[in-house]
Structure formats: C-alpha cells, structure tokens
C-alpha cells in the first residue's frame, strides 16, 4: 500500500493507492501483479494491474513484465498505443498453450488531477463519485500483433479513457478472479459477475462513505474469496485509487522535559483535529490530570508480550510506551501482508497508522528515571 500526496495546488487532497490480493488456492506466488509508483520529477502517479496467463510463477513473470514495462513506458511518455504493441510483442510464449498473454489496467494520474486509464482485457474499471457510478467515454483501439502465431486469436482491443478527478472519487479495478469468483457454485453458476461486483461496492460505499481504499480492497477480495469457498479458483486482486481529504493522526509520547510545559502538550493534544494516540503511562497521566478525564486500563484479552491498552475520553487509543512502540516498529518493518487481528495495543496502533495519511509525533524528551541504573541515578 502506498500513500501519495496529490494535486499540487493548495487544496488538500490525498491520493491513496491501495491493493489487496490472494493467490490461487495452493499457489505460493501471485499471478496478478499490482505496481504503483510516484514520479518524483513531475508528480505523476502511475499504477498498473496485470493478470498473467495461468497462475503461479509463470503468470507472475508475464504479469510482472507487463506491469513493469507499462509503468516505465508511461513514465517516459512513450505513446500508450506504441507501448501496448511493444508489450504484446515482447511477452514470452507459454509452452503448454503456445500463446503469450497478460492483461493490464494502467492508470496515470497527473498532478492537475487529470486521470488517464488504459485497459486491456481486465474487467472494466468502476469509477464512483458521490456514491454513484460515473462512466467516462472510452475510445477503442485495435492493436496489431506481430506474433500472430503465438498471440491469442481474438483481436487485441485497448480501451482508453480520461477524466478530471474530483475529491472523493474512487477508481476501482480488479482482475477477473473477482468477477469470476464462485463460478460453478449454486449461488453464482457463472461467477459473481461484473454487475454484482458493482452493486456490492456501491452498497459498501453507501454504508461506509469514508471507507479507505485499503479497507475497501479487502472487502472486495474477501467477498470474492468467500464466493470461492476460501479456495480461490484464480488469483484475486483489487486495486483502488481514492482521492480524498487527508486523515490526520497525532501520537503523543513521553512527558515534556520541563513539567511546566505539560499544559502546552495537553493543549496541542486537545486542539488537534483528527485521531489521537497517547503512548506512555506518564504521558497518559499528564493528559488525565490536566483534562480531568480518567484513564481506564482494559484488563480483558491480555497479551503476555504487550501491555494492555487503556481508554480515555478524547483519545482513540491509550497504550504503554516503549514496549508497544517497539512492537509497532517491528510489525511495520516486517511489512506483513496478512490482516492484523487487532488483538493487542500494538496491532491497534498499526491499524490506526495504516489508516492515516499524515501522522504527527509529539515526543517529550524527558528521560525516564525508572530506566536509569539506580546506582547512578541523578
């Protein structure tokens, strides 16, 4: 998952790019590839989703080649039609099927909010604006293949569309593992289907208008996985690009060096607009003392490694300091793709971090006497 600041003008709009995927049942490697990069030179955000023929490593190679080339070509301003030709004529040929093939959806967002989308054989993207669908006009172009023998027999048609992004827009795209999920099941004999996916997404956005791209991709992929009875019949990938107001998070940790600054700390805490975390027992006590709100430590669902979380009116999470923070750093560094179970305070903090775009740390610099060698305590 990546977060980018977009739209260079003064208005505050963030572009959140997120994806979630599961690979085909019993396949260790993904055959769908999702790549996203921000071009630091010109501020463009280029994102690609490619679905390689088959599944596993072979599909992964095809999809990686396609997605990487597509992103590089677009970043270097090579005309997309030409880029598509090169990609199609470069892909290696599958030994079993004798064809070379990988689909792609390519999204290019310029700093002035102009969005260009190029699609080849993936299910069409869904653009949601103000909780309803918007369908930009699409142009069709047929690409000629040089490798007629090894290419699929049907014509390669590229769909090109563009629109001006507005705050609140959600661009949702996915591999056919989503639309074809559940195929053969009594409930969806022909798969979940594009229209059902559309209604599902619209229903969630209607119920949770502020849902992040990250959470929405998870909902879509998990539903597709459920349709397949948790044994995915194909790689299932969903990518979402969400333009929205940035979500702010404040983390205060550690008491100020001078106790007379305690009130300043608490004032900054109270005045902050966004979610708030207090990390550290003494820090929590300072806020509690200054605001008169009591801290309640939750002694249920204890974790032997992480100190329990607490609750305080006005704070979204109150935790212990150093042990919890170290665990948070460890979870973030591991970059685990698995869903967090949110059992302990550290996992809850990571969840809040990942669901925020700007995180402000207010760090007190007082040294904790309790952590000093008692023989040399000052």
């Amino acid at each position, binding site marked *: 998952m990546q977060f980018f600041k977009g739209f260079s003008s003064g208005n505050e709009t963030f572009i959140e790019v997120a994806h979630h995927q599961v690979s085909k049942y019993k396949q260790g490697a993904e055959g769908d590839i999702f790549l996203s990069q921000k071009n630091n030179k010109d501020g463009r955000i280029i994102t690609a989703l490619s679905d390689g023929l088959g599944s596993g490593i072979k599909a992964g190679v095809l999809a990686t080649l396609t997605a990487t080339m597509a992103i590089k070509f677009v970043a270097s301003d090579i005309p997309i039609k030409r880029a598509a030709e090169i990609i199609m004529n470069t892909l290696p040929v599958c030994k079993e099927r004798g064809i070379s093939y990988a689909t792609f959806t390519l999204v290019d967002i310029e700093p002035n909010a102009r969005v260009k989308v190029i699609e080849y054989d993936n299910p069409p993207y869904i653009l949601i604006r103000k909780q309803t669908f918007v369908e930009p006009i699409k142009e069709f172009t047929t690409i000629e293949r040089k490798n007629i023998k090894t290419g699929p027999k049907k014509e390669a048609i590229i769909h090109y569309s563009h629109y001006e992004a507005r705050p609140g827009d959600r661009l949702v795209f996915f591999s056919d593992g989503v639309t074809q999920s559940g195929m053969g099941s009594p409930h969806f004999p022909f798969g979940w289907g594009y229209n059902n996916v559309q209604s599902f997404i619209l229903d969630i956005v209607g119920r949770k208008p502020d849902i992040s791209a990250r959470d929405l991709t998870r909902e879509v992929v998990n539903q597709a996985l459920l349709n397949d009875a948790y044994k995915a019949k194909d790689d299932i990938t969903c990518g979402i690009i969400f333009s929205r107001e940035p979500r702010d998070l404040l983390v205060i940790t550690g008491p100020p060096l001078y106790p007379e600054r305690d009130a300043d700390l608490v004032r900054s805490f109270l005045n902050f607009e966004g979610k708030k975390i207090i990390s550290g*027992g003494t820090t929590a006590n300072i806020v509690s003392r200054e605001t008169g709100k009591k801290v309640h430590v*939750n*002694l249920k669902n*204890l974790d032997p490694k992480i*100190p329990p979380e*607490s609750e305080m009116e006005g704070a979204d999470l109150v935790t*212990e300091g150093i042990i919890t923070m170290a665990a948070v750093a460890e979870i973030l560094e591991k970059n685990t793709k698995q869903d967090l179970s949110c059992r302990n305070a550290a996992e809850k903090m990571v969840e809040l971090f990942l669901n925020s775009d700007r995180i402000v740390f207010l760090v007190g610099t007082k040294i*904790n006497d*309790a952590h000093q060698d008692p023989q040399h305590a000052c």
Partner: protein
Amino acid sequence: MKNIRVSICTGTACFVMGASEIMMLEDSIPEDLQGRMNLEIEGVSCLEKCTNHNRQKAPFVLINDNLLENATLAGVIDALRTIVEEE
C-alpha cells in the same frame, strides 16, 4: 465481607518486571478465598512509583492504598489472604 481494591501498574517498568502475570489475578484467586471478599481489580497506566529513588522495585501493586513493591502474583494473593483472614 471486606471491600478490597487492587490497582496494578501497567507501565513499562512494572510490565517488564512481571506485572503481566499479576494482571491475571482475577482468574487466579484460590478457591478458599473466593466469595470471601468484594474484590475490585483495576489497571493503572502508571503509578509513578518507579521513579522514586528509595530503591523501591517494580512491579508495584496498590492494595487498598497499601503499596506492594516487588510484587508477584503469589505475593498479591498472600496479601489478599492476610486481609481476608484479619477478621
């Protein structure tokens, strides 16, 4: 029946010195003590006793305003038993 309030410090120093075990007090009350006291167990984000340089040692537990230092689960249960059997 006596009202007993146990406040367990959950701050860093106390946690690493063994408070995590004391937090399981509610599930660890021996049978002979069960039903003989009105026990209230709460966590405290920091009792701020560890910064005291009188060589007091974490973990700290407050039992009805009496501070127990270097506390253990068994130590807290013993203290509860003493209070219950004082009658």
